[in-house]
């Protein structure tokens, strides 16, 4: 009988389960993986270097494009770092809006993850279900910023504008009759807050639907239980954060432990796993969606009752209103200076981290007192997680690689930066 030699296999970079452009060199012995060497950087755009060549405000849009399924959370970290150096604090209403949109973003991200993870290991229906709800949340993005993905909505000193009083509506077309459009628009008649309120009312039912399909599903459990078990000690050692760390049973959530904005006023729970396998991380993320829903609801209630400014009134940092520029010389000068040169940030360094849906997303900012950052370092959660993939897949079958990539919730926009 011929002896089976170990062989090397190339996985990706063009593979639907590689979640983008991951190239894995796998050393296999039969179906079992002996070693995995991920090659990343195929999406490297030098975001940090680009940010160093532009005034501070012009780079907010780049942050959306890092982890392009949780856009506003990326912005949040960058904006927080600038605010930390400038020593400014946004108005309370802006902080609530940020928390609300952070949580909307978390749900967006987890829905994308659940859909793609399900699709990868054979649950096609999940993808369709998740995108149904994602569509509604994308509409919130659109209502507030005009774009469905790359919002550039958070600004140093607050948010770009207050929540709108109306929602964008569907138009009848060849493919959609007036009757169907009316049904779709029924929920969109009121303000954005009404829409989000209605969403939070129906969303727990949707999560129940997902769980009915997956949580006790035999195939789902066969593919995830006891796959890629990470002990809490190893998770800490490997730099895991977010659901990857909580899935291993470490109760650590920046929203609770090092609260920023108004998270200390929010009532929510931190789910943790027990075994540290793919199934536990699935359970943690699904529960996080329910908790996010609770936070969104609390923000909606507060925002309804408390109108107010959403941007600080400091025109050295924030552009004055267009109308003021018409007859106020000083406003005109401020506007001109802000849009030609930007603002100078005092020299120093700051690290601002947020509890991003994927883990700890941090921005390390060094300023030398100029109008451009001297050094921007983006600490992406996915980068640390992916570096541990070799350890997680060794000894598993080839098909489990797909489950591990899925459970890590990898997005190459942030890994490659």
């Amino acid at each position: 009988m011929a002896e089976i030699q170990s062989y090397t296999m190339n996985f990706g970079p063009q593979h639907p389960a590689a979640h983008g452009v991951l190239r894995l060199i796998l050393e296999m012995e039969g179906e079992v993986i002996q070693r995995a060497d991920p090659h990343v950087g195929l999406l490297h755009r030098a975001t940090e270097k680009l940010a160093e060549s532009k005034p501070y405000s012009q780079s907010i849009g780049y942050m959306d494009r890092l982890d392009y399924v949780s856009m506003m959370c990326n912005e949040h970290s960058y904006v927080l770092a600038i605010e930390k150096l400038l020593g400014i604090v946004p108005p309370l209403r802006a902080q609530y809006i940020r928390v609300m949109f952070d949580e909307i973003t978390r749900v967006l991200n987890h829905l994308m993850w659940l859909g793609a993870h399900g699709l990868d290991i054979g649950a096609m229906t999940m993808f369709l279900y998740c995108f149904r709800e994602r569509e509604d949340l994308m509409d919130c993005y659109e209502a507030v910023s005009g774009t469905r993905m790359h919002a550039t909505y958070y600004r140093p000193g607050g948010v770009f504008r207050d929540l709108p009083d109306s929602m964008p509506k569907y138009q009848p077309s060849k493919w959609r009759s007036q009757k169907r459009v009316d049904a779709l628009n029924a929920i969109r008649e009121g303000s954005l807050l009404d829409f989000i309120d209605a969403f939070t009312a129906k969303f727990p039912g949707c999560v129940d639907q997902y769980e009915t399909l997956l949580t006790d599903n035999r195939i789902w459990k066969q593919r995830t239980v006891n796959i890629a078990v990470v002990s809490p000690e190893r998770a800490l050692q490997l730099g895991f954060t977010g659901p990857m760390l909580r899935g291993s049973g470490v109760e650590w959530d920046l929203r609770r432990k090092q609260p920023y904005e108004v998270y200390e006023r929010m009532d929510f729970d931190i789910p943790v796993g027990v075994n540290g396998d793919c199934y536990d991380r699935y359970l943690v993320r699904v529960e996080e969606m329910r908790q996010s829903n609770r936070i969104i609801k609390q923000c909606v209630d507060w925002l309804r009752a408390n109108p107010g400014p959403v941007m600080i009134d400091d025109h050295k940092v924030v552009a004055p209103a267009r109308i003021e520029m018409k007859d106020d010389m000083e406003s005109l000068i401020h506007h001109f200076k802000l849009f030609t040169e930007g603002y100078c940030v005092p020299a120093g360094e700051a690290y601002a981290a947020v509890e991003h849906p994927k883990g700890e997303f941090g921005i390390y900012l060094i300023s030398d007192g100029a109008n451009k950052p001297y050094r921007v370092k983006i600490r992406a959660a996915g980068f640390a997680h992916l570096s541990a993939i070799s350890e997680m897949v060794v000894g598993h079958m080839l098909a489990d690689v797909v489950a591990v990539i899925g459970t890590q919730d990898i997005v190459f926009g942030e890994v490659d930066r």
Partner: protein
Amino acid sequence: MRISLETLASRIDARFGAKVERVPSTCGELGYILAKNDLIPVATALRDEDDFSFEQLIDVCGVDYLTYGTDEWTTTSATGSGFSRGVERRPVILDESDTFADRRFAVVYHLLSIRNNVRVRLRVYTGTENPPIVPSVVDVWNSANWFEREAFDLFGILFDGHPDLRRILTDYGFIGHPFRKDFPLSGNVEVRYDPEKGRVAYQPVTIEPRTLVPKVIRDDNRYAPDLKDGSKNG
């Protein structure tokens, strides 16, 4: 349990004394500069001792201080001629015998203690060596592996003792270290498909580097320390 930064600072002072030098911070963060020979013992102590227990290395980041504090807006010389948008950059050809300024390259480590709920930042300057080199902390925190590969790739900083120091983010066969401040933003080479040769070909970049908004440093008196304590309109 959360300990305050000052508690931590006093513990670090008591334990390491002159080995570490505290960096003043304007935004309530704790940072230290230390010599690269002290890095491994200090890092190990910070990880293992109960007073600190920094179980996690959150980030490793290279920094190039070449143009720190210099601006591109040459007001005095340009007053007569007007401002040019192109900022001239001379190509940098490094010789093996060249050395760097003492504080040109630094490696910055961000540590997080889950138990004490506190963060600290360590900064190590690489010194004059060419290529710059610091000891690797992979054996202290395994998460350093890819972060150090990244700093090597982008800044050319070597990590002594790293098990697998390869490029990570740039292209296969890339030349240079793109995040150094003397590396042009538009790069040195561009890629195109050569129909005659029937393959992808590299050639020097044809884009002229332009600076749309020059870097400018203004002394904003709002941030001057003696004005911040309420005597502003005095």
